[in-house]
């Protein structure tokens, strides 16, 4: 069930270092929101605050609120483990569980949720692999290790693993940066298909990719190295890339900066 994300006044720290400062934004359900910006501007850190992954880094700490529909992810009674079961994540480098078969990789999240019935698992695994456009390539070798697939296939396996648990939100942290152009295209097509079912947030260094896949784009920047990253603006992707309202955005996308 795709949900709306409402962030208000969010800052994140690594120990004493403030990585992102006072970010507020709304992410619409059933759409793709892209985060762009120069390296070190905190877009990945911000993404990781949306499923409470930031705080697993030693010294990681967050202030502010993230509402998923109406529930504050940082409420005192909220279990971060439960948050991560409803907000899925795909990483920069494909990270299937190396010791598990393709089937077990996709089923891992379901098993964590206490689903063990073989027939039920098989159904969801097939559906998820089809959803990730990987089924036809792996249906004859579901018991082979996931680490034997190509990079692009592994990344789609990770997407299948993430969507198998039917999350509310799917976070993607530069999901194509380790892939070749053809695999990248496959993932981008997949993102287009998935946005009908999920709220998708994608961090990317590739501005063409942001322009191709996203409905809305947020531009992050930092005043100087060592300064916290800030949200400069968020708007319709088309508008960001044609007629942004802030000069810094214009400079960045036209390559005069960063």
């Amino acid at each position, binding site marked *: 069930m795709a949900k709306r994300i409402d962030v208000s006044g969010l800052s994140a720290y690594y120990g004493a270092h403030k990585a992102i400062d006072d970010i507020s934004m709304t992410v619409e359900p059933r759409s793709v929101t892209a985060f762009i910006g120069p390296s070190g501007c905190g877009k990945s850190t911000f993404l990781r605050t949306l*499923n409470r*992954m930031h705080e*697993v880094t*030693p010294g990681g700490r967050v202030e502010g609120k993230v509402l998923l529909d109406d529930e504050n992810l940082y409420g005192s009674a909220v279990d971060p*483990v*439960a*948050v*991560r*079961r*409803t907000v*899925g*994540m795909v*990483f920069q*480098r494909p*990270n*299937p*569980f*190396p*010791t*598990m*078969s393709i089937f077990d990789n996709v089923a*891992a*999240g379901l098993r*964590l*949720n206490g689903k063990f019935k073989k027939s039920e698992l098989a159904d969801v695994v097939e559906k998820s692999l089809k959803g990730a456009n990987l089924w036809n390539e792996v249906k004859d070798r579901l018991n082979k*290790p996931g*680490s*034997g697939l190509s990079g692009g296939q592994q990344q789609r396996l*990770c997407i299948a*693993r*993430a969507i198998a*648990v039917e999350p509310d939100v799917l976070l993607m942290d530069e999901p194509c940066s380790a892939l070749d152009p053809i695999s990248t295209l496959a993932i981008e097509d997949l993102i287009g298909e998935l946005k009908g079912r999920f709220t998708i947030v994608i961090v990317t260094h590739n501005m063409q990719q942001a322009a191709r896949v996203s409905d809305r784009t947020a531009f992050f920047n930092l005043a100087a190295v060592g300064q916290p990253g800030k949200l400069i603006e968020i708007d319709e992707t088309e508008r960001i890339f044609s007629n942004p309202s802030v000069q810094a955005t214009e400079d960045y996308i036209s390559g005069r900066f960063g």
Partner: protein
Amino acid sequence: MASSIATDTPPPPAPAPAARRNQSTGRAGDKIFLGLSRGSGIFLLVVMAAIAIFLSIRAGIAISEDQGNFLTTFDWNPAGSPPAFGIAVLLFGTVVSSVIAMAIAVPIAVGIALFISHYAPRKLAAPLAYVVDLLAAVPSIVYGIWGALFLVPYLGGLNEWLDSYLGWTVLFEKTEVGVARSIFTVGILLAIMILPIVTSVSREVFLQVPRMNEEAALALGATRWEVIRLSVLPFGRSGVISASMLGLGRALGETMAVATVLSPSYVLSLHLLNPGGGTFAQNIAAKFDEANQLGRDALIASGLVLFVLTLLVNGAARMIIARRKEYSGANA
């Protein structure tokens, strides 16, 4: 060999003088290093071969003189006439005490390693790791004295408890009175002695689990234990096996501590709590000084069996690791 590499390489096309000098020092370094590393490798093989040949010759002499069956005789009497000796008691004592040690030490070591690598706050983890490593620095004779003076008297209660509740298994039935200078006590002492090595190696392996593997589990909503089960243990599995084998190697060959704790007797008893029994290394240490020529050869023959046993154990461990190689973390 080294010169053939140099001649195989086509001459560089008229390099500048400075460049040539750099290159030639590089080549010389290559040759020296190649020689050193190859020499070290050959040296190792020569040493191994020398040990194996020495052991085999002396053992062959002993076994040909043996009037009993070297494998099944329950006696060690190379000075008798006719000389009769067999390793059955030693093999049993060595294997059983090491198995007890592994059964106790490996789960505890994995637990300590996981605690240090994944649970303990950093301020506690470093000193704890240091203390565990320190345990490895204690000389084995000190373990032996501690075992004899502390462990043996204090295990009496545990032995009674095991006897009354698990006596029906035969293994834990104590049929002889006497202090706990038994194979079981040796197993417990060996467990403590191999704990540091198994712990440190496991800890290092657990610390090497790629961050992204753990994050994969975390992002699926895994609890800390589930992260360990999904990512850390599968990745560390072969490392834990290797660590256990290192520990087992030490347990199989441990001499002084066993000799100090055990009250040796040349009997093979399934009652592990009874005093008595023996191990290869303990038997060699106890009898070498007073043995005659044949007696020494006989002890060397038993040492050769220990050598082969260790090789077999290592081979088995490698097979276990290799069998699931394509699933190992290495090709991630």
